[in-house]
């Protein structure tokens, strides 16, 4: 069931008196914009053809796009979608057209009952190996004592591990930050949040 506010519903009023042909033209246009991206020339051409302001056309198409997006966000099947648009002021044929377009858009987006994939993908930690090295001398300076740590870090996105050196102050700083994070996880506030989410 979606919630559309007054302004978005008012954008549909332009579409209601249209003929079925024009209406389905707008709907397919909205669905194509979802798949291929918005093409503003379509707005100006349609505005010229129907002699209406470009803004009304843009609002109408974008409101249709919003309808389809909300449908797939809530993982609605085609029947659920047609049930939810009943209380919008479309007539029977327009509802059928909308439902038909929604069905094709589901196929196009490749998801039938699955929710849309999350747009945020985080890299996960896989493995870390370390080695403590002390540089004693080099060609440039014959007497030194430089400790550092060689780190081999493997993350979930790359198949090759990364290598880097860390000097001791940076390493201490990083461990301090990680200890703070661990302390935060055990704090009262975070524990309360976990309880509520569970």
């Amino acid at each position: 069931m979606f919630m559309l506010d007054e302004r978005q519903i008012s954008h549909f009023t332009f579409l209601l008196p249209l003929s079925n042909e024009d209406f389905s033209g707008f709907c397919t246009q909205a669905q194509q914009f979802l798949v291929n991206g918005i093409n503003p020339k379509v707005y100006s051409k349609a505005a010229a053809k129907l002699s209406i302001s470009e803004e009304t056309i843009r609002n109408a198409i974008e409101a249709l796009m919003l309808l389809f997006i909300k449908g797939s966000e809530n993982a609605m099947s085609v029947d659920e979608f047609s049930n939810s648009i009943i209380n919008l002021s479309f007539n029977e044929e327009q509802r059928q057209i909308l439902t038909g377009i929604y069905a094709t858009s589901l196929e196009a987006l490749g998801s039938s009952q699955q929710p849309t994939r999350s747009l945020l993908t985080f890299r996960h930690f896989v493995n870390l190996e370390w080695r403590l090295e002390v540089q004693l001398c080099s060609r440039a300076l014959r007497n030194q004592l430089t400790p550092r740590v060689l780190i081999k870090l493997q993350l979930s996105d790359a198949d090759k591990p990364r290598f880097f050196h860390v000097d001791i102050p940076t390493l201490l700083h990083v461990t301090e930050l990680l200890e703070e994070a661990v302390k935060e996880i055990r704090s009262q506030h975070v524990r309360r949040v976990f309880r509520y989410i569970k």
Partner: protein
Amino acid sequence: MRFRFCGDLDCPDWVLAEMAILSKLTSIKMRIFVAMVVKQILEQSSDDDKIAQFASDVKFDVKDVHSSIAVIHFIVSSATKHTVSSDVLSNELQQLGLPKEHAQALCKVYSDNSSRLEELLRNQSLRLTRMESSQWKVNLLLPADGQTPESGAVPTVEIQMKLRDLENKSNSVKMTMSVEQCITLRHELQKALEMMESVQ
């Protein structure tokens, strides 16, 4: 509770849970089992038949066998990692609830194999590249077209090194150098070797 063989950290829960299962063995069977697992670690091989036979001997089911192998693997490798002496290991295992004879059996096998285990872990340490082999050749370059015949033959040293990088790929590095460069390189490497030996 901080344990030395866990690197001064708490002992993991699953290790504690396994102690009850390990205590069901007799101490002689325990020694045989630990020896089998250590052999498996050292040779990096997995002798499934022997393990299956042993499991049916002591009436362990498959899950128990796998978890006991994992626990012994963990104990032995982290004890080697943190260079824990076998008395300390025996004490700590008894604190965890392993009976005295079992702990002593495990520690005996551990101390017998400790140098070989250390060697194995040292080879598994992180290293960027390793040198496999090196070869050298001295070439004598005769005067070429455009050089005066009096400049004579010029000796050069050609060195080829075979390196192995982390993905176990073999790289070959070839280089040529003049006599002075070769002498300087040898001198510098000698100095580096002296530095390394002074640290030891």
